[in-house]
């Protein structure tokens, strides 16, 4: 299948420090693409640049053949790219269900008065949104939690809620920034299953992750970044044995011990 996302020569510098250096990445439709790399290699910056949190210093980002460079975050989201955050950003005053409803806001069609005065179409739309939300909550494994405040969930489930919120926007490309951080090993196994199910729904996933086991298990392809540059790309098995990757990750100590 063709590429859904093309990153062409993207650089990003902060106050002269280069966080991404002339990066080229192509992500195919329907795959789970992992992006790995040591701390500070530019993974989160890449997500921020793709989603428009800050503009790229140079280069272009093409989504489904359309140039989305420099669009504001909500416009990029409306085109079908959404994300989760490494340091969770839930809405403290909304319930679990309301999180998932809010994420459908931009797709709702009933106008202000229709929604405020619950006209027939307004009510129908709200009901439709609620049942869709319930379905998504069940899908990620948060059934029965709908009426809790989002921050009332235990930590692992908050990560799931972020994924549910992202799915509710109806994305074609989902960017997950360290979704396994802070999860127990059972929770990671559940996450692994969830990621596969998301892929089987036709959603392309970009996964930035530290937990190698998870990456190796679910990723179709892996891109490795170091100092903002791509140093390797390939199937998990290829990456596992790539000496340059081992070098970047484990440094000289490992190389010395191995030799």
């Amino acid at each position, binding site marked *: 299948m063709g590429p859904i996302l093309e990153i062409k020569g993207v650089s990003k510098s*902060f106050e002269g420090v280069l966080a991404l250096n002339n990066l080229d990445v192509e992500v195919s439709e329907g795959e789970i693409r992992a992006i790995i790399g040591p701390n500070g290699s530019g993974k989160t910056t890449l997500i921020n640049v793709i989603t*428009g*949190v*800050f503009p790229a210093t140079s280069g272009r980002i093409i989504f489904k053949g359309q140039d989305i460079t420099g669009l*504001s*975050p909500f416009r990029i989201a409306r085109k079908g790219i959404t994300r989760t955050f490494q340091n969770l950003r839930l809405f403290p005053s909304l319930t679990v269900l309301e999180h998932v409803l809010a994420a459908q806001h931009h797709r709702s069609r009933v106008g202000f008065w229709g929604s405020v005065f619950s006209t027939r179409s307004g009510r129908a739309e709200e009901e439709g949104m609620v049942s869709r939300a319930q379905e998504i909550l069940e899908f990620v494994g948060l059934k029965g939690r709908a009426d809790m405040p989002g921050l009332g969930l235990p930590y692992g489930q908050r990560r799931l809620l972020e994924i549910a919120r992202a799915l509710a926007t109806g994305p074609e490309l989902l960017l997950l920034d360290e979704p396994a951080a802070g999860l127990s090993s059972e929770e990671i196994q559940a996450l692994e299953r969830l990621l596969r199910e998301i892929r089987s729904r036709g959603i392309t996933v970009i996964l930035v992750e530290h937990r190698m086991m998870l990456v190796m298990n679910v990723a179709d392809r892996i891109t490795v970044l170091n100092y903002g540059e791509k140093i390797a790309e390939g199937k998990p098995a290829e990456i596992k044995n790539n000496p340059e990757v081992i070098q970047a990750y484990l440094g000289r100590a490992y190389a010395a011990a191995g030799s």
Partner: protein
Amino acid sequence: MALSVLVQQLISGLAMGCIYSLVALGYTFIWNAVGIVNLAQGDFVTVAAFLYAATFSNHLKWGFVPALIAVMAVMALFGMGTERVVYHPLQGAHPRTVMLSTLALGILLSNMDIILWGPYPVTTRGPFGQDIIRFGDVSIMQHHVFIIVVTLVLLFLQHLFFQKTTIGKVMRAVAQDREAATLMGIETGQTIAVTFAYSSALAGIAGVLLAPAFMVSVDLGSVGLKGFASCVIGGFGHITGATFGGILLGIAEVFVSSFLSSRYRDAIVFVILVAFLLLRPQGVLGRKVGESL
């Protein structure tokens, strides 16, 4: 417009611009250190102007320099007190909460002014009174020149302070990245208190310099808006920008109000402010970075 008038206007605009710069710097340091706009900054200027005019100059008959130092000292203490009362207990609260509490402080102060110093405007004589210097057919208020000189000296001292002293360097580090500074083991709490003290002392100087040139009343608080406009013009959070923006605004204001009615002076400033937010929100010197965070 005759050249002489032009020069006169320029000097008086420059003098007002210096005052705006001082107020703008006050906003900038607090913004950089704690990420809030101190909505009482304009009222700090008024308090300082009253302190100087009514108490130290008119009542106690102190000379200009001791009075200036006294006002700065009082204002610095006052700034620390402000930090204790309206910022410190609200750490971790949303910035809007802290800003609301600074607004409450501003309202409280403008009414305290009236209680302490009466409802009538106070006038005072500065070191030069209404004296005028003449160069050919150009006549310039000596006090205006004085304002410009004092501000320049102060900016120079400030530069030395930030480059050479430890506390200055620490303040700069905290202003650039508070979290990183904390990680490096800098006592941010103390530094924030010093930042409030310094910002208030700047408002103190602005008040003392303003007092002889105007009637001192609570209406002086409107320099708060002018100072903020200066920040936006120069690029918010930008130290050089604040200085530059103030001077630009001072000059623009004098010229625009000499063409249009001076009654709408404040309204003109506001229109300039809106225009900047629309067309160049990052200001003249600022870069458009991280606006969406």
